[in-house]
């Protein structure tokens, strides 16, 4: 069912976003505690990076139908 595709994509997006955000946040906390003297900026950096990556992934996923892959292009 083609109408269910979009819903699936959104689910993936959210899950991916949550994971990346969480991972980024965790990594940020770790780095902040270990190397950056408990500054807040690594935390915000990590979570931001995670969110950004999730955003990019989500956008790519949503766009994937419209983008030509290199293999298709060569064909």
């Amino acid at each position, binding site marked *: 069912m*083609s*109408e269910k595709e979009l819903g699936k994509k959104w689910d993936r997006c959210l899950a991916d976003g949550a994971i990346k955000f969480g991972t980024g946040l965790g990594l940020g906390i770790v780095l902040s505690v270990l190397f950056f003297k408990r500054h807040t900026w690594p935390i915000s950096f990590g979570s931001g990076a995670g969110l950004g990556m999730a955003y990019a992934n989500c956008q790519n996923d949503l*766009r994937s139908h419209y983008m030509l892959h290199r293999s298709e292009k060569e064909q």
Partner: protein
Amino acid sequence: MLRACLRGANATARTNLRGTRPNNLQQCRHYTAGESSGGAAKVVVAGLLTVGGGVGGTIIYAKWDHKFRAAVEKNVPYSDRLLGLAWGPLPQDGRPSVQKQVEVAQPPSMMEKQMKASKSKSEKKAKETTESPAAESAPVPPVQSLEEECTECHHHDDSAAPVAESPVTEPLKERPVEEVSARLAKQDQEEQDVIAAVSVSLEESLASSAKSTLQAIGAQEAALQAVIRHTLKLKEAMEAEAPPQEKSAQWKDLETSLAERNSAVNDAAAALTKANVALDSLKSVIDESKGLKVSAVRPVVLAAEENLHNMVVDLDKAVTKVQTAESEAKIVSQYSELVNEAKLQFQKEVSSLTPEIQANWKSLTGKLSPDDLNALIAHAHRRIDQLNRELAEQRVREQIHIDAALEQQKLEDQKALEKAVSTSLQHVKEEARLEQERKLTELREVMEAEMRTQLRRQAAAHTDHVQDVLKVQEAELRSEADQVLGSKLLEQETRYRQLSQEQLDNFTLDMNSAYARLKGMEEAIDSHVIAEEEARKAHQLWLSVEALSYTLKTADTNAPSVPLEVAAQAVRDNCSDNDFALALSSAFPQESLQRGVYSEASLRARFNSLRSLARRVALIDESHNSLYQYFLSYLQAALLFENKHEAPPTQLSSEDLDPFKLLSYASYCLEHGDLELAAKLVNQLRGEARRVVEDWLTEARLTLETRQVINLLSAYANAVGLGTTQAP
């Protein structure tokens, strides 16, 4: 830069005392403001200069290059006004006009040259042709007539040449034969007349002159004879010692002969003058006749001239003879005179010496006294002495006298020689001229004969050509006639064949119709049997199609119907001999046969859930598909309100292709049971919305296809059934 400056100022203010802060700030502000104001002015000035330079440059270049100007006027609005103000309107046809003028100037000059060339050519031709008639001075009559015509034509041509540019041809029209022959005859007649007249006149004058010449010659001869006789007689009289009676008779004879001579000489002179007059008249007549242009007269004229010449020659000869005789006679007469003189003198002397003898009658007896005789003898002796002396003297003077006489003779001889030479020269000249004239006439005759042969040849060639042309024409006419005959024959044949064919056709038509009727009857009987069979089959088909359509109804909501395979197979079995039904029954889509189709109600329900999704992704397509666009699309779907159901128009315009409108049209159609139109409308969706409804669309298509096939089959079965069931 300003911020950096401010931060720097703040930092310094924090480190410095609080009091100096406003000053620094102010200084900074002034400094920065001044700096910025100076920089701004420079920039503004530079910008103005560039713009002004650019505009001026374009204007000046536009004046120089027209194409650039046209491009600028096309691309930059209102530039044409500016450029027009500066340099005047764009010259459209500056250069081409000059070129056209040059071209226009050339053709007239060329035409003039052509005219001049043609004119000079025609003039040259005219000159040549006018010269040629002048050169051909031999006036053979037909040639002459042609020449006259030629000269006339060329006069016309010369007048017409400057007007027309057509080539100068001699418009020699071929006159009709009768006219030519009439002209020729007339000309001949004229010539004959002229010749006759001339010959008559010539003959007359010739005759008269001949007569007079003969007379003159005769007279001259007579005179000659008389002179000769006279001289002879004189000589005789001088020399002969005849008795006195004969002497006196002789002297009388002499006198008579002298008288004769004189008369003869006078007659001769008169006749000579008459002859000269006649000859002069003849000469004038000859000259007159020479002046005529008729050539046939020439030989006659020539003969007359020859005759004249001969006469002149004879006359001159006679005259010379007479003159020689006269000169001789002169000598003899002189001699006789001398002798007479001597005699007289002697007698005088004798008489002076012997006067008595004279007076004396004694002398009659002839007896003289001795005194007289002595006196005579003495006288004679004296005379002899005197004569001897004279002789001696004469001998001495002999040479001188001889020389003088020789001189005289020489002079006379020379005169005579000159005269003879001149006369002979004249004669020779005359002869040469006559010879030339004779030769000329001969040549003319030869030329005429040649011309005649050439003309004869031309006539022969013409007749040959005419014969050839006639032959060719005959052949052509014959072939034409044959052609016509052949075509007519062909026509007749075809008509005959047509008629026979028609008869045959009619007969076969009748036969065929009878046969067909028979066949028809047989077929009708057979078809009845067949029709019953067909009816049975149709019933079966109809039943199977009904079963098929019933299977459609087995579809639930959200579940497809049973696979249509079995029912379709049943239909196929029942219509094994019918191609149309077979084709239709095999036109089912595979999905419907294997899996079955959804009902309309389920599709409707599904559509309603799809609709909201399609609304939400309405803005997304190939170019707009970022997350931000998704956000916007969702926002739009939330904020936009449209009719739930809207009746679609009969024709979709471009604004109806908005997804929201399309969805409301489609839902309206679905509500009213028009799945087809709904599918068409949904088909107009583009982009992500289209991707979302793709599956629904395929399902709808399947359903529609199956339903269409089943409808066709049932319609067909109904039709077949109707067709086979006939009213009794």
